[in-house]
């Protein structure tokens, strides 16, 4: 028995010896099933596409890359199991995170396992607090930056005098409103906040709040609503039905394709901002972006959205750091990203802050044809 085992081990050793260089393992943990499944699949697909492109150019450090993709089921407890599996399979990097709670639960596990952890989408500020992972890296924008761009637009470009809030009553919505108010103070906003109306994440009927807001005659109503497939389209529809004249200013990143699909023309005139668009400048002129959009569209039959771009950028940023440091070590690679600049990603040339946050560059837009999701860039 013992001898057979030994022989087997030797055989395996011999078989793998000529190959020597094992594949570098890129792990992904996103929701692949349930409500957020399609979103997670988009990010995973983008990661796979980028890895394939790197392999076609000869891989990294002379080794091929392979992707291990796992499903966190949008459940923190499941994410923790998947993170443990990544440690067992000795992943060299894990790109993860659609829901903040899942990311927050996986973070300490991956950090203890010594695995480099890049958060693609999850937005919570706690992720970069450094308490559980001193080498955290995040690609998506944070609430703080999002608030700055919206506040600047409302105060400086719109020169609004009367502003109202229609805020989702949870950490995301309230946090965003607090951040906007802080920005107002910084910008010496001379107007006034005339009203704040709140609602719950699951709400689909906003007529009471909208009627109240209609009476305020505000120049701008700043809206947070992360229920992209049901609550937000309903809100946009009811906003138009109520005949409100105030400009609908949506928080960053809420105007996803589902909103256009459901609410169509009612979206016309909505103003918002985001960090990636396949069909708006500057992304239509940057070769890194256009080639990504072309390759993604060819591979998956639809143009990539922001989440796809976030997944692709995560791979690019990591790969460049590995190439430049000639290392796969967590600390070495993370230090080559945090606080440094990275050239030629799908977002163009990007800069990382010392806390690991990729500095976002926003495009403000106005919806011109909601039915066809046509936008017009502002500024």
């Amino acid at each position, binding site marked *: 028995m013992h001898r057979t085992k030994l022989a087997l081990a030797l055989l395996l050793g011999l078989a793998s010896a000529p190959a020597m260089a094992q594949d570098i393992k890129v792990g992904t943990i996103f929701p692949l099933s349930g409500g957020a499944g399609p979103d997670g699949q988009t990010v995973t697909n983008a990661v796979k596409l980028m890895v394939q492109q790197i392999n076609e150019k000869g891989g990294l450090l002379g080794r091929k890359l392979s992707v291990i993709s796992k499903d966190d089921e949008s459940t923190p*407890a499941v994410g923790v199991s998947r993170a443990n*599996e990544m440690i067992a399979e000795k992943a060299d990097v894990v790109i993860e995170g659609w829901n903040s709670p899942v990311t927050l*639960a996986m973070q*300490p596990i991956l950090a203890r396992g010594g695995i480099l952890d890049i958060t693609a989408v999850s937005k919570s500020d706690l992720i970069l607090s450094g308490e559980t992972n001193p080498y955290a890296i995040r690609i998506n924008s944070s609430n703080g930056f999002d608030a700055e761009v919206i506040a600047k637009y409302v105060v400086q470009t719109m020169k609004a005098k009367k502003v109202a809030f229609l805020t989702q009553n949870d950490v995301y919505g309230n946090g965003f409103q607090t951040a906007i108010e802080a920005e107002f103070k910084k910008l010496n906003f001379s107007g006034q906040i005339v009203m704040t109306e709140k609602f719950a994440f699951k709400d689909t009927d906003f007529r009471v709040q909208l009627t109240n807001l209609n009476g305020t005659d505000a120049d701008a109503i700043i809206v947070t609503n992360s229920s992209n497939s049901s609550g937000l389209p309903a809100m946009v529809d009811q906003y138009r039905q109520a005949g409100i004249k105030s400009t609908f200013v949506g928080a960053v990143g809420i105007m996803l394709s589902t909103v256009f699909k459901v609410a169509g023309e009612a979206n016309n005139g909505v103003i918002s901002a985001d960090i990636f668009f396949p069909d708006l400048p500057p992304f239509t002129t940057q070769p890194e972006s256009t080639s990504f959009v072309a390759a993604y569209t060819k591979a998956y039959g639809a143009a990539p959205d922001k989440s796809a771009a976030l997944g692709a950028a995560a791979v690019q940023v990591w790969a460049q750091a590995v190439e430049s440091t000639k290392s796969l070590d967590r600390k070495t690679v993370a230090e080559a990203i945090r606080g440094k600049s990275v050239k030629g990603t799908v977002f163009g040339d990007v800069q990382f802050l010392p806390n690991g946050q990729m500095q976002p560059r926003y495009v403000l837009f106005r919806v011109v044809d909601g039915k066809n999701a046509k936008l017009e860039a502002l500024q």
Partner: protein
Amino acid sequence: MTAIESPRPASIPLLRVAAVTALVATGFFLPRLLGGTSVAYSTLTTIAIFAVMCYGADIVLSYLGEVSLGHTVFWAIGGYAAANLSAKYGLNGWVTAAATIALCLAAAAFLGAVTLRTREFVFSLVTYAAAVVAFEIAFNWDAVGGSDGIVGIPPLKLPMLVTNFSGAMQEDLWPVAFVLLLLTLAFIARFRRSRLGTTALMVQMNPALAASLGVDPRRIRLAVFVISAPITGLAGWLYAYQRAYVGPDMFESYFLVMMLTAIVLVGRRILLGPLIGTALLITQQNLLSLGGDWNKIVLGSVLALVLIFWPAGLVGLYRRIARTP
């Protein structure tokens, strides 16, 4: 009583003690027998914690015959107590465990008193409503973590007279989880033979007999419900240290379905039932996973099939097969 018969009863407990000791020793070294990898340790620690979580709900289901859909509340109380007290005030594991027990007893006394007159479907519904309310509080109250939860939970510290135990790694948490599981098993085994346990069973199986003996069923129900809470609570307490993050997801149906399925899978009122059930479910999810949607379909179908066809669980199924000629 003849002299020949007397040694027999003595030898059986001895054998039993030896068997139990061997089982406990094997259990303790199981992660090492499975290769000693960090995954072996973390998986077995998770199984131990989840099993303890199940035992709390098991007492209520097996001895009161009621399905509590509110045990996630106690699970979350343990998690939130450990997280808040250790991360914000730097308190050690003994203090957070004591707080968990106290809070669970208080919450269970309240919930138990409220549901005292309810039975079956209404009992389940009210306990479920309690879980929903508790979830909304945890989700919206920033002081206890809000929708983001609490990060930065330090490693478990259990200072003892001579040594200062610290569970920084998964491997260090295993002994704690194992001891907690053993204590729970010992407690359940004692409870089964206790006056309260047998009376509760009588109240459930033969209320008329219980009434004729002058038993107050409401007192029994309340007592059983209250002692079940800290068991699930302590599991949540340890889970907070294992995961180092606590959020409103502790109320998720994932844990609730896990509890109920693990209990009914093997069979009610079987000492090792919930432990084996938990081990089977976690192993399926981690090693034989069919993907998220399929796992949920499997888990849901298993629960439904067992309840419909073999209400007595796998043990009942085995007995039925064994009985058929």
